[in-house]
């Protein structure tokens, strides 16, 4: 599923100040793409991820997921889009502390009208793919940072999304665990042709992507493609 962003602008009110987070941004995320968004803090990377992921709507412009105009959807429609097409990975893992790793991965499936058996199978597969099945019964507080982020990746892919949006996925990990997470994302992109969009400051993360978009002041200021 291609995602097209056309002339999108977004601003926020921050106290008394109006902050222009995105200004007339357009891009195409082709199905199976692996894109990194780089740039300083406040460049608009997270806002762009939020708009592509249907977490919010732009003030201006259009976003299409396939033929579907996301800007025309209501909150219910956007929720369904996120449910079936999008997986999110956050910087600080954001696992729910009262739930075990297994239950955290189950979260996106809880409201689905599938059998419990089918849901359990999906969760087991997702945990296997990130090599964390052996820690499934542990609470997040009992897991290392790397393990928590692997659980977060499993949660993001458990619904077999078309696109995974990762916001600083290695930001709180050491080098070794950061590499492990990027390996997982690469494999996901290669094996399932899942579109991956990663927002990061980390040059190694940026290098892992086939396509790098550099952002500044709410605009895409450059784009690089890597061979191979």
């Amino acid at each position, binding site marked *: 599923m291609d995602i097209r962003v056309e002339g999108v602008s977004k601003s926020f009110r921050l106290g008394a100040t109006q902050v222009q987070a995105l200004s007339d941004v357009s891009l195409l995320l082709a199905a199976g793409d692996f894109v990194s968004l780089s740039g300083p803090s406040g460049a608009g990377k997270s806002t762009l991820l939020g708009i592509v992921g249907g977490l919010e709507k732009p003030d201006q412009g259009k976003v299409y997921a396939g033929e579907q105009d996301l800007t025309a959807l209501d909150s219910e429609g956007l929720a369904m889009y996120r449910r079936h097409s999008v997986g999110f990975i956050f910087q600080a893992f954001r696992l729910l502390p009262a739930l075990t790793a297994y239950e955290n991965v189950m*979260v996106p499936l809880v409201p689905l009208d599938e059998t419990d058996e089918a849901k359990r199978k999906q969760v087991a597969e997702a945990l296997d793919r990130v090599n964390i099945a052996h820690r499934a019964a542990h609470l997040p507080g009992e897991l290392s940072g790397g393990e928590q982020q692997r659980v977060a990746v499993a949660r993001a892919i458990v619904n077999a999304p078309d696109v995974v949006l990762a916001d600083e996925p290695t930001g709180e990990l050491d080098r070794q665990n950061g590499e492990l997470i990027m390996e997982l994302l690469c494999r996901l992109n290669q094996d399932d042709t899942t579109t991956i969009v990663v927002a990061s400051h980390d040059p190694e993360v940026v290098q892992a992507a086939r396509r790098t978009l550099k952002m500044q002041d709410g605009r895409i200021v450059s784009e690089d493609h890597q061979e191979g």
Partner: protein
Amino acid sequence: MIWSYAWKGFARRKTRAVLAVSGLAISIALLVAVATISRAVRSAVGTSLEAVGADVVIHRPVKPCLFEQVKLVGGLGEIDGGLVDAIKEIDGVRNVTGVLDLWVFSEGKAVASKQGKMVGSPTVVAGIDPAKKSIGPVRVEKREGEDDKSCCAVTEGDYLRSTDTFKAMITEKYAQAKNLKVGDKFPLGPYTFEVVALLDLKGSAHISGAEAFIPLKTAQTMYDQRNIVTTIFVSLDRNSALAPVTETAKRMIGPEADVTSEANMSKTTADLAAVTQRTLFAISAIVLTVVLLLVAKTALASVAERVTEIGILKATGWRDGDVSRLLTAESLFASLFGGLIGAAVGVGLAFLYGTATHPALPRTFVSYPECAATDPPKALPLDATPSAWLLVAAVAVALLIGCVSGYLASRRAAKLLPAEALRQL
């Protein structure tokens, strides 16, 4: 699956769960206890009338007179037996009987001390109409269409017959105290009576309770030969007959006539209890309101505390309705446990109250003097067992509070935009 997720969320946030559950439990416990005690006291008061099969009891209170061997029970005055016949004619009266309550001194006349107190130990005697077995102080037959709530049972011998004269039914307690059995003869004042039956008064106080029950005509003969009674028991087919009965009693006895029905008896007997009940009800209502506000505030606060969680749920495809169901389910778990625990604690409190409290009949209805040979059954039966519907209603109230707080939390959560929630990460 949302319910199972909600249960995990509820059970694993122990502090929040304990706070929510205990607040509700306290208020529900108070409600259950107050409602149960109130019902028990009302029922106990009603029981004293049901026990004698009457809806109305008529007395004529007077100042007690001493110095007689056979005298009226202290505080009760003479009522012309014609009133019984007059009441019988009133439309809506089902049954009526007159009783002559006497104190009979078997060993010479009663004397008064210098302080005006009675000296000597009388036998408490009630003259009853042997034909009236379903109404009066020795009620052994149940009224048509009601459960058996009669006060007495003949445990040995036979009930008095209309043709009997100097025969008596005595309580088991009195028989034990005087070493009497059926067929024995014993003195009552200047007369000798034969025991024809032993009675079990079932341990609770009732109106015109006595140690010996003799035929009314004989009692009247012992007193002063006239057609006199001291207490009239009236049962009604419909409540509208109460007014003409009262009017007739006032007309024939005078304004001092004391006409007692369940309504004014409750007032006399349960005045203190009523005040206590009203106070407790007021406290419960206040507590419930405070709990409702607290639960609502906690629910809203919980949304504020869980912005991150709600943001993540919405980011992973939960719709507003899904989040709403989750919050409502959690709230319902808290209220269900609060309701169940509160109901159980309320039952316990009511039981403790019922065990520790012994409501008594007003003095007017107790024929026994302090110096009687046997102790009268004093306490009214207080059954502080809550009805099933009360427990169901209590849990329902708790669940209603849960629904309200769940609804408020859901509304707040629905307004939360996922991107805004996640920006707070």
